[in-house]
Every structure is written in C-alpha cells, then in structure tokens.
C-alpha cells in the first residue's frame, strides 16, 4: 500500500529525513514513533503528497508521488484520511457540515452526503452533536469529528499526526479504540506519536525514527 525507497528530505541545509526505506502493507496498523524533531510529521507529509522528497521515490497504492499531476493528487487525497493534533475543524461550520464537507468535495448528491455523514457520526458516537459547533465540544469530541471527516469517504489509508497529543488518558483510550475499529474494517492506519503510553500497550508494528533515520 505504501512504499518508500531511499527517501531523503532536506529543508535548505537541514536534513529532516535520510535514506528512509519503508513498506506498509494494505490493512496494516503502524505507529511512527520518535522524539520531537525526529521527522515523523515530515514523513507523514511526504506520504500525503504535501512535500516532495529531495531524493528517492514514494508509491501510494502503486502511484508514484514524484510523477503525479495536481488533479491526480487531489483524487488520491480523496482516498486518504488525515487527522491532526489540532483537529483542523472549521469553527464556523457545524459538526455535520464539517464532516459532510469531505463528501461534498467528491461532488456527491446532497442526499448521499447527508446519509454518509449521519452514519459516520453515529459510528463515532456524535449523533446528538450534529448541529453543535466545534468550539462547543470537548477536545475528545472534536478529535472524533476530525476522525469522522477523515473516514466519511471510506479511505484506503488513514494518517494521524499526534492525534491524542491534546487529550487526557481516558479520551486517548477511546480514540485509539476508534482507530482500531477503523483498521479492522480494512483501512491502513499510520499514526505518528511520541507518546510512550500509547506505544507501551500495543502489539502493533512500531517504526522508530531518530534524527531523520529509522532506528528500529
């Protein structure tokens, strides 16, 4: 599903990632771990097509990101979900509108979008908060909205960058259960985190980065 071949990323004179080769299979659940500044976010951004590698090749579902055209990249992103630490929700739109947005972008009928948004919000336990605005929700609820938005189009891959960084341990557990259930439905999940608690209690694959290189 995801293949990186000798990928290096430089920002000016700084080397953010060096000679990364990685293969993540379809339906896998992978943690990318490492201290702050290790290159976790850069790695996710490269796999999402938000950055271009300085060297090396990246293939997502067989598509080479080095050669992809703008419109094709947009199409690919519709099959990838992304969840951020700071949620990235539109505060002037309701929970329902935030989630429906990802379906509207596909040009789907309003009736289909509505149905999908209701279903996914029910799945993340936010049916009763559809008409609320993000700032009226707790951190955990906001992250569940972001996950619902990432999941509405039933993506092949879900990337999450420090998704529990702003949440307390109880809520973190809930969110991780949600990610696990998403993975069980066949979506490849890649989570970047520096949280030791999250990594200690898992039997999933962990890729550890340090100073831009894979160390284990």
């Amino acid at each position, binding site marked *: 599903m995801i293949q990186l071949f000798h990928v290096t990323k430089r920002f000016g004179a700084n080397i953010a990632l060096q000679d990364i080769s990685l293969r993540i299979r379809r339906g896998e659940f992978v943690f990318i771990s490492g201290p702050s500044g290790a290159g976790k976010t850069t790695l996710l951004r490269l796999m999402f097509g*938000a950055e271009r590698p300085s060297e090396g090749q990246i293939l997502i579902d067989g598509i080479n990101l080095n050669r992809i055209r703008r419109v094709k990249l*947009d199409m*690919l992103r*519709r*099959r990838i979900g992304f969840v951020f630490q700071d949620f*990235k929700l539109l505060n002037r739109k309701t929970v329902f509108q935030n989630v429906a*947005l*990802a379906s509207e*972008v596909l*040009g789907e009928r309003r009736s289909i979008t509505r149905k999908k948004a209701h279903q996914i919000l029910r799945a993340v336990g936010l049916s009763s908060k559809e008409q609320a605005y993000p700032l009226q929700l707790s951190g955990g609820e906001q992250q569940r909205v972001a996950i619902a938005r990432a999941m509405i189009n039933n993506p092949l891959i879900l990337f999450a960058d420090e998704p529990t960084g702003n949440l307390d341990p109880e809520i973190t557990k809930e969110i991780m259960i949600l990610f696990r259930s998403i993975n069980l439905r066949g979506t490849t999940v890649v989570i970047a985190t520096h949280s030791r608690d999250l990594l200690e209690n898992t039997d999933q694959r962990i890729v550890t980065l340090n100073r831009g290189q894979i160390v284990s």
Partner: protein
Amino acid sequence: MRLWVRYFRYAFANISNNRLVHVVSTGTITITLLLFSAFVLFFANIDNWVLEWGQSLSMSVYLKQGVDEKAKQKIKSVLVGIPGAKLERFVSKEQAMEELKETLGSQAGLLDGLNTNPLPASFEVAFGAPERAGIDIEKIKKKLENMPGVDEVQYSEQWLKRFEGLVSMLRIAGLVVGGLLCVAVLFIITNTIRLAIYSRRDEIEIFKLVGATDWFVKVPFLIEGSLQGVLGAVIALGVLFSTYSLLSSKTIQVFGLPLLHLVFLPKGHVIFIISLGLVLGLMASFIAIGRFFKLFYY
C-alpha cells in the same frame, strides 16, 4: 449544474459567516469605484460642455451688392429649409455699417471717408449642438455659394476645429487617467480581497486536505468577489447619482448658468461601471487566491 448550485450555496454561506470581512471589502470597492465613477462623471460633463460649445455653429451668408428682393427671399427660404438650422436674423447693409461703427467705437471716424457703404447684407444662421450631428456643413456652404445673389458663405470653421482638437486631447487625457485609476482600483481591491482570503486560509487548507480540486475551492471565492464588485459598483453609482441630483438642481439656481447644466452618466457608462465592478472583483479574487494554493503542493 449540481456543482454550480453548491458553489453558490458555499459563496452565500461564506458571505453570511464572514459578514464583517465582506462589509469591509465591499466598502473598499464602493469607495474606490465611487472615486472612479466621479472621475468618469466629471469627464463626461466636461466632454459634454466642450461639445455643446464647440459644436454650436454660426454661419454668415453674404449677399451680392444690389441683390433683388426675389433672390433674397429665395435664399431665405433655402436657409429656413436646412434641417437643424435656425435663421437668426437678416443684417442689412446699413445695419452692418452701424454694427461696425459700434465695434470700432472711438475710431469709427475712419469710416466717414467712405463714399459708399462697401459692407454686404447678410443672413446669420445658427446650428445648435444636437442638430449639428450628421450635417455636412461644407456641402451646404457650396450649395449656397452657387445660388444667384450669394457672394460668400463663412462659418466658424477654425473655432470648430480648435474645439475638436481640445475634445480629442481631453479624451486622451481621460483615457490615461482613467486607465491609471483602473490599475489603482485593481491594486486596492486585490489587496483587500487578499486580506479577506488570508483570514480564511485554514478553510482553503482543509478543503485541499480532503481532496478538493483547485476550482472547487476557487469558484465560491470568485463568486464572492464578483458579487462584492457588482454590489460595490451599484452602491457607488447610487451615491454618485444622489450627489449628482443634489448638485444639478443647486448649481443652476446658484450660478444661474444654464450652459453649465450637469448630465449624469449615460446608460452605457453605467453598465460599464457595473461590469467593471464585476470584472475587478473577479480578477482581484483570482489573483489573491492563486498564491494560497502553493502551500498545498510541492
């Protein structure tokens, strides 16, 4: 079609969600277009006055010495029959001499040495500005000069040409200043809309994140910009018309100069300014939004 309904829905929702930003942008567009429209109105009036003065034409038809009454009547009937011409008066030889004496004033004594009156009798004809259009004055001159009893025909050709030169100079100056104003207006509007879009960059980022194409994101912004441009232009014209109505009634009363009557912008200019608002709003949004897309690609 479904997509366009969605674009308009987004645009109106954005306007409703960002009312203050839109009020500020539309206000800026209104002020800049008001300045531009005021310039166009000022220029249109100057152009109108110059044309009115310059094109009101007078013509003198000098008669031969000893022309008989029958020929005189025939010439008169031809002059009256010219479309748009107004026969002002007939100046007899004696009257012409009197007027010359008046013009010379204290030096009128110079004329005492003349045994006979050498001045010819003449008809004076005037053409008003509106009637001037479409009349070939040179052709009329030739036709009259071929008539029995007519000695010479003169009209204010030099005067007319000078005014036409002035009008074309004014037009060039108007185009240059108008063009510069247009660029300034585009610059101001672009920057205003750029600030408005900058305040919503997170929105653009999220749209791109979920795989929206550039046009899916851009079109609602372009619709918003166009609506702001049209609304700004309509408000600007409304303010200008109110000011014009107030001034046009007072100017004549206060100065008592009927020649300086004000005219409002012709329909074509009004449509032009509204279209300009639309195009400027559209272009400004297009320019302003373009740079934000660089953030979401490599």
